[in-house]
């Protein structure tokens, strides 16, 4: 077969420090038009030792070459499970750069920031409608930051009831951020076994008066809907607990079902997943949090409100958990997400979820005869295989690296932890039938290679600029900066 992956002329590039040439400049500043001032000598440093000296051309070539060593959603298919690597619309980049939005200072008086505040208010309202919650805060900078905000609100609510409680229940399929966030709220984490989906019975067995909350992900990280969610929420509520939902997988549910209607009390959104804002090579994202009415008084300050004199930032909220960060949130990310929602509309968002689920099920149908599928329940937006049936002593990592040679970003691997050698595929709705077919052909071809010529997998990737890297050496003798 003809693969996407091929070799071309890829340029080598040194570290910027290795290009530095004394006397070169890459900046321009106007001449100083006031008298130059000198600070007392004991306050002043020498020039920053080691800083580079480069021309503008040096810098542009440097980063352009580096960019060619990356693989983005615009390069090709990026089926990372639980990451929702959908296409990032270009108009969203354009509107985020409008000078009136990109140039707005966060300390500008509210009456001179009405456009920004209106956008935030409208986004809060839209996210509340999509999720079924009463109120939404846009302040958290990322999903994990939203989890922390949500769990702090849960703890603050319990404190207000007179007993903070001590434990949080977390199923074994959860993202690592869930237990880490619960710990930051002073809670002990109790992991619970789920066997694919969580049963109401299991939750009931663990639920007692010391459990502050259950943290679930729905659909969960196996791509399965937690079908007993309503009973589970009732059980937790009956014992005085609250239910947190990790909203990483909301892309399966838009217009179909709303976490707020299921009995869930708090959920964070990942705008960089469900709402098409770019991942930026690791960030920035945004992690707004939706809450039910009882938790709204605990939201971080400030809260954007709409009043008689326009949109306002509301600070006087005595029960608030406080601030999660400076200013109001990752506004530039919020702008992109709002543009996405306004472009899609209600029917468009529902269609996105439907096609995301269709794509995942299509990939599953094409691959399940060849790859081991540990859970047979109906998949939603993602599907998790294992490497059990991969021949030739090949493992998930080998498959992942071989996929790179074929021109694909690998799926999420070795997660969730409940599946040994997990291969977690989330195609998203923005991929066409042709792309999915080509990817499935590649997966099937690699399974064949594992059987007939496993060395191809063990050696992979071979078409990349560099080969597999020695991660053990990196950790044993950490070199975390140039010259150091």
């Amino acid at each position, binding site marked *: 077969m003809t693969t996407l992956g091929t070799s071309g002329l890829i340029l080598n590039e040194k570290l*910027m420090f290795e290009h530095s040439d004394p006397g070169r400049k890459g900046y321009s*500043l106007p001449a100083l038009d006031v008298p130059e001032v000198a600070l007392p000598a004991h306050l*002043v440093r020498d020039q920053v030792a080691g800083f580079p000296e480069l021309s503008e051309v040096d810098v542009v070539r440097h980063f352009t070459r580096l960019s060619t060593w990356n693989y*983005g959603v615009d*390069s090709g298919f990026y089926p990372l499970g639980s990451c929702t690597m*959908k296409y990032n619309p270009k108009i969203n980049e354009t509107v985020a750069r409008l000078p009136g939005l*990109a140039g707005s200072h966060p300390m500008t008086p509210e009456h001179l920031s009405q456009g920004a505040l209106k956008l935030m208010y409208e986004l809060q309202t839209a996210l509340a409608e999509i999720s079924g919650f009463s109120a939404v805060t846009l302040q958290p900078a990322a999903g994990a930051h939203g989890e922390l905000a949500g769990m702090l609100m849960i703890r603050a609510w319990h404190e207000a009831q007179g007993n903070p409680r001590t434990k949080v229940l977390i199923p074994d399929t959860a993202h690592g951020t869930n237990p880490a966030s619960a710990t930051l709220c002073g809670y002990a984490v109790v992991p619970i076994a789920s066997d694919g989906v969580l049963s109401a019975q299991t939750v009931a067995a663990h639920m007692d008066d010391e459990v502050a909350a259950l943290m679930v992900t729905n659909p969960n990280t196996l791509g399965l809907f937690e079908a007993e969610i309503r009973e589970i929420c009732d059980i937790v509520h009956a014992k005085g607990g609250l239910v947190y939902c990790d909203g990483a997988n909301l892309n399966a549910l838009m217009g179909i*079902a709303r976490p707020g209607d299921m009995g869930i009390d708090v959920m964070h959104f990942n705008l960089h997943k469900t709402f098409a804002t770019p991942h930026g090579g690791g960030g920035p994202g945004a992690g707004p949090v939706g809450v039910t009415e009882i938790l709204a008084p605990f939201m971080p300050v400030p809260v954007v409100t709409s009043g008689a004199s326009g949109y306002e930032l509301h600070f006087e909220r005595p029960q608030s958990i406080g601030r999660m*960060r*400076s200013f109001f949130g990752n506004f530039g990310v919020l702008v992109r997400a709002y543009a996405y929602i306004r472009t899609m509309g209600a029917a468009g968002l529902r269609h996105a979820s439907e096609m995301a689920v269709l794509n995942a099920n299509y990939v599953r149908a094409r691959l399940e005869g060849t790859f081991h599928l540990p859970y047979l329940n109906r998949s939603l937006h993602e599907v998790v295989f294992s490497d059990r049936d991969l021949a030739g002593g090949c493992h998930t990592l080998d498959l992942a690296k071989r996929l790179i040679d074929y021109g694909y970003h690998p799926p999420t691997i070795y997660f969730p932890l409940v599946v040994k050698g997990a291969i977690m595929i989330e195609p998203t709705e923005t991929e066409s039938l042709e792309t999915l077919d080509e990817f499935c052909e590649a997966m099937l071809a690699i399974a064949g290679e594992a059987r007939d010529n496993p060395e191809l997998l063990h050696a992979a990737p071979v078409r990349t600029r560099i080969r597999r890297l020695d991660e053990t050496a990196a950790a044993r003798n950490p070199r975390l900066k140039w010259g150091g």
Partner: protein
Amino acid sequence: MRYIPHTEEDIRQMLDVIGVDAVDDLFTGIPADVRLQRPMNLAPALAEGDLLREFKQLARQNATADSHLSFLGGGAYNHFIPAVIDQLVSRSEFYTAYTPYQPEISQGTLQAIFEYQTLICQLTGMDVANASMYDGASACAEAVLMTARATRRKKVLISAALHPEYRETVATYCRYLDIELVTIPFDANGCTDLSALEDVLDKDVAAMISGYPNFFGVIEDLAAQAPLVHRCGARLVAAVAEPIALGLLKSPGELGVDIVAGEGQSFGIPLAFGGPYLGFFAARQQDLRSMPGRLVGATHDKEGRRGFVLTLSTREQHIRREKATSNICSNEGLCALMATIYLSLMGKAGIREVAVQNLSKAEYARRAIAALDGFSLPFAGPVFNEFVVEASESVEAVLARLEQQDILGGIPLGRYFEGMANRFLVCVTEQNSKAEIDVLVAALAGGGQ
């Protein structure tokens, strides 16, 4: 829908392969009683041209440095952003990539982060820097948690002159972790009160947190704080909200600081109404394994070629779960790239020159305002590019008058500090020409008439 490629025929074909009749059959795992039985109530979808028009309309309702003369700082700064930065970060190999978990196809991001970590270490005088945090305030909160972990102590001292939103964020993060926060007052210079600090320091203290420069723009005497703090076995944390200052001021490392947490927005990142910004975080070697966040390290491939990987990840939540050093996952990678490009353009000479311009222009404005009737400077300490002004009338009236002349004159301090109803914080950067500063001064002077 232009982002979704499926034709009716594609859908039919896919359903056949799956073996179901309709798309709705794929959702049978969701019980009917939790299904939404109506369309979501959202505004109608917009065509691209209409969307752009609507967003331009929103953008017009915000004041910016294009519409007004701006002297706003307070943790977000109006610095010049070279055109190169947006051109380069708009390469979608950078901005549409995920976290570099597959290093063979992520070397661009990884090498850039390695360079970023190096630049932050050089600038701060620290040994190690991570790949970024959310912003200055949350980086500062993470620093507080790290010192408590590293020292196994539960009391943290915070300067009252630290940015109030940083202090509030620290308080939120510590809310339920049994960490006692003690505020150290500032003195007549607007500096952390050293004798008050000395009085409170004891063997239970994990760390002292100071702004550098602090919220009032004043350059704290970290060299004097460090020995006091270290004598008790505690860590000194410098929170840097305006890192352009580090082009000129002694590096925190030279002054004995142990951890630097700061805000990198000044390095080429748009103001964007408060975010996304860039938390930077750097420390001494001794705290490496307690650090939060991702780290990139150099290594080599099978054939001996240099390459970069995420490393020491056993500190992180995806491996260590509830025992992780932080819950952070997504960071501010693209903003770190912007800062890396900014610093590589400015280089050794440029970071110095822009710092000197900020210092000189702020001093010019400060002297001119101090000479006006009805205005005075309450703090005597040396400042970088911000300073506090006291008015003889209400600040609201002063700032409202400036607004009439399209001037954003500063940040009122009454909302943050008791007894400061008549004070405001003025910021001057390289973006403010002498002529602009003169307009501000004239407008302030005009008020008394």
